[in-house]
């Protein structure tokens, strides 16, 4: 099952990206940056924290980041939306963040838990579904929403 939650739309994935970590290794030949030790990646209002991340980029004519793979207790926060999971992949070309492994999405009071979370940064749509990781069997999705009291 899919549960959709609306969030702030159109995140600019070409904004400068700031990385902070205990250790950063930039491998120019492999066009890869390996970060480890409470990694904190910030891009405009999007922020990703994890234990280890790898950034794949190309610098043919100007720097272009292709994807960021993060694992080890990943936390993605954006505006009032906060998502947690074991593994996250930020795909810059499709402008989508995919998180898998007991994912919890929290947004101003509402929560959604499930196997996999897909945040579409263009439309701001975050959808949680039960498939745990790569096409597992239909897992459960649970969530709590607080509704305004009409009294």
């Amino acid at each position, binding site marked *: 099952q899919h549960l959709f939650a609306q969030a702030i739309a159109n995140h600019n994935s070409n904004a400068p990206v700031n990385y902070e970590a205990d250790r950063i290794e930039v491998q120019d030949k492999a066009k890869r940056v390996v970060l480890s030790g409470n990694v904190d990646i910030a891009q405009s209002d999007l922020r990703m924290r994890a234990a280890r991340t790898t950034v794949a*980029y190309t610098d043919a004519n100007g720097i272009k980041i292709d994807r960021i793979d993060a694992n080890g207790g990943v936390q993605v926060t954006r505006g009032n939306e906060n998502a947690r999971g074991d593994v996250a992949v930020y795909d810059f070309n499709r402008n989508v963040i995919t998180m898998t492994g007991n994912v919890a999405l929290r947004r101003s009071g509402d929560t959604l838990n499930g196997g996999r979370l897909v945040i579409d940064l263009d439309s701001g749509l975050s959808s949680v579904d039960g498939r745990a990781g790569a096409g597992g069997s239909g897992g459960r999705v649970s969530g709590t929403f607080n509704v305004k009291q009409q009294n």
Partner: protein
Amino acid sequence: MTEQADIMRTQRRGFAAPGGFHDKLVHFLARALPAAVGALLAVMIIAPLSPRGEISFLLDRRKVAVLEDRMQVSSAMYRGLDDSGRSFSVTAGSAVQKTRTVPQIRLDQLTARILLDDGPAMLTAGRGDYNFDREIVDVVGPINFQTAGGYRMTTTNVDIDLGAKRLQSRGPVEGRIPAGTFSADAISADLSERSVTLEGNARLRMVPGKMQMP
């Protein structure tokens, strides 16, 4: 004779009259000048003979300006072989070796040229100390590194190990590489692998889009 002419003539006679100022002046000079000539002649003859007049100096070994640098070379070049047997060269605007005991040479405006797997590379720095025994240049201040393939890096205060073609920083540094600008407590870079490792609250800033070459 006109009246003025008579007046002028009487004035002139009065001026030249015996016992007048002019007359006394001439009498005095008639005696003073020859005396001055004689005196001058005397001085010129006697002066060189007197012991005081002899001009000479004693070179005192202690007081002379001593250059304590043992060796000073301008536009120096040092050659060596790195660990993989390829030659490298360090050229400098000026090189000073202070003492014989320490194999340390202070270089200014230094350029190190090394050979990497994918072609030659060059490191330039303002000032550095080259230890030619361990083939290590420790650079004070900014340094930039560029390879034939266009990879460039700038950073500060690093030790360059020309043998192993590695950079090692001694303290916190920041700099720029094609991927972006970085800063960290310590960095170590492998020049042939073109990999830079930042250690200790490392920061890297990537700006997608146009390339800012250092």
